[in-house]
């Protein structure tokens, strides 16, 4: 059995005359976390709604775990867990009641409902709030209940639409690590418009723009491409500026103040390792060395600009 859990082919969606999703196709395998990037209104949510059966496609095919979603919606949907942008919660129910209901409508066998709910709560850190009403929980906890809802029936595919929006930094970190963990034994599709989020949690990435899939690659390749050709260097015992300028491959140095410098280097080089070695050997008190990445905007603009002529390679 192959491990392609989501297979999308020629998927299109029109809203009246407007095209929201234009013949996109992709695959997600077990153990992959796919980051689905794009500015607001690019068609991320429409695509996710189609994969989860909330929206009928205008054209195209969707297979979930080898089952055609359009021909066999019930069978295919048992393998999907979906967290929409707004977590679909019944605020008047307690966490336990709600998760039991979710397990039941996802056709979890009666005998294992209790176990499934306990597993989902454990996984999402909800053990302390089981009897509490969802409406009284904080936003972060509600978001976790939303994720618990998506995993309670142990689906093969988990689809999360902007799962970290509106959370505080600690909650964001927890949710991201939860997603990475889920990615080990499920296929996870995660939509966001935050590039670093994808860099931190995903191993594959695809970018959608105005309904078209404009980029698809692994995260390590993305990191290569998104690198700006610049490093931020922080030193506690800095040498003369000229010493920094003579570092290998460094083309110019901009002081950032506070004993930090921005070192510009050739776009396709990565002198970080050499610089680190030199800084340590010379006892400059190395305290920061960070490659700079483009923001999603920049990266996105670059990709859409390069796209028509992929062979051209401006150094």
């Amino acid at each position, binding site marked *: 059995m192959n491990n392609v859990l989501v297979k999308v082919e020629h998927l299109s*969606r029109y*809203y009246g005359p407007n095209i929201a999703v234009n013949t996109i196709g992709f695959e997600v395998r077990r153990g992959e976390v796919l980051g689905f990037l794009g500015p607001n209104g690019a068609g991320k949510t*429409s695509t996710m*709604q189609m994969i*989860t*059966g*909330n*929206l*009928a496609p205008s054209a195209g095919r969707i297979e979930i775990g080898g089952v055609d979603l359009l021909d066999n*919606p*019930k*069978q*295919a*949907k*048992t393998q*999907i867990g*979906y967290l*929409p*942008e*707004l*977590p*679909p*919660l*019944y*605020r*008047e*129910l307690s966490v336990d*009641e709600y998760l039991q*209901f*979710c397990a*039941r*409508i*996802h*056709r979890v066998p009666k005998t294992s409902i209790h176990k499934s709910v306990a597993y989902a709560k454990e996984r999402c850190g909800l053990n302390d709030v089981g009897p509490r009403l969802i409406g009284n929980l904080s936003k972060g906890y509600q978001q976790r209940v939303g994720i618990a*809802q998506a995993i309670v029936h142990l689906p093969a595919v988990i689809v999360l639409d902007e799962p970290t929006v509106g959370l505080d930094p600690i909650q964001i970190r927890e949710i991201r690590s939860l997603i990475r963990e889920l990615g080990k034994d499920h296929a996870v599709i995660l939509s966001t418009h935050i590039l670093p989020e994808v860099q931190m949690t995903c191993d594959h990435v695809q970018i959608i723009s105005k309904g078209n899939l404009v980029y698809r690659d692994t995260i390590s390749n993305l990191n290569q491409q998104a690198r700006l050709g610049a490093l931020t260097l922080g030193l506690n015992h800095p040498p003369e500026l000229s010493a920094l300028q003579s570092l290998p491959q460094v083309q110019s140095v901009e002081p950032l103040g506070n004993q930090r410098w921005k070192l510009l280097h050739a776009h396709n080089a990565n002198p970080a390792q050499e610089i680190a070695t030199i800084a340590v050997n010379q006892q400059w008190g190395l305290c920061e060395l960070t490659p700079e990445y483009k923001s999603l905007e920049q990266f996105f603009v670059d990709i859409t600009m390069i796209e028509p002529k992929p062979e051209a390679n401006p150094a």
Partner: protein
Amino acid sequence: MIFTIALRELRSLFVSPIAWVLLALMQFVLVFFFGGSVEMYFDPQSQVRMHGQDPGITALTGPFLFFWASLFVVLVIPLLTMKVFSEEKRTGSLSLLRSAPVSITEIVLGKFVGLSYFNLILLALISVMPLSLLLFGKLDLGLLAAVIIGFFLLISSYTALGLFISTLTRSPIVAAVVTLLLLLFLMFVDLVIVQQNSASAFSYISLRTHLEQFFMGVFSTKDMLYFIIFIITFLILAIAKLDYERQQG
């Protein structure tokens, strides 16, 4: 699946105060009508006695009580059905059901059954009043059964209409008001437009006229069919509307 959704619906109704308040108010008001009708039976001066007839206590209390109840539920049902879909659309919880392996038909039927559970509770509370007379004497149980069945068909029809209206909007208030106006119209068209020759058509539309046979103790299959077709029509409309949303987004 249908019953899982139905039980969830019923539970959500009863964890909010609205179901309790409505049931209590309804009972409080109707008990006066019931008391009044019992009193009427024992009043030697009452109209029915003076005409030399004796319709019996069941015929005096049952239809009278349920007739007033059928007017009150015009106010009660819209408040119960308003949230069913509009609230789920507003909060986004409808997508939980949509992405679950259940069909739209099952969702709509589940909601309808859930509300029907509530209707049964309401029906039981009202029926207890005339049935309490059994402690003191005999009742025409056949007549009472016809009245109760007619009343249940009527509130099920209200519920199906309210459920459909609730799929049309995200605002529960709008759903409640529209349902209320439509129910008032459907109950009283024949009274408002009585002079025209087309009165028979209007009286055929009117939900109230279909109740009359039941309230006279006749188990009228013709009228029962009317209610059942009414219910099925609005359930199908609700299913079609939700399916249309999936198609059109």
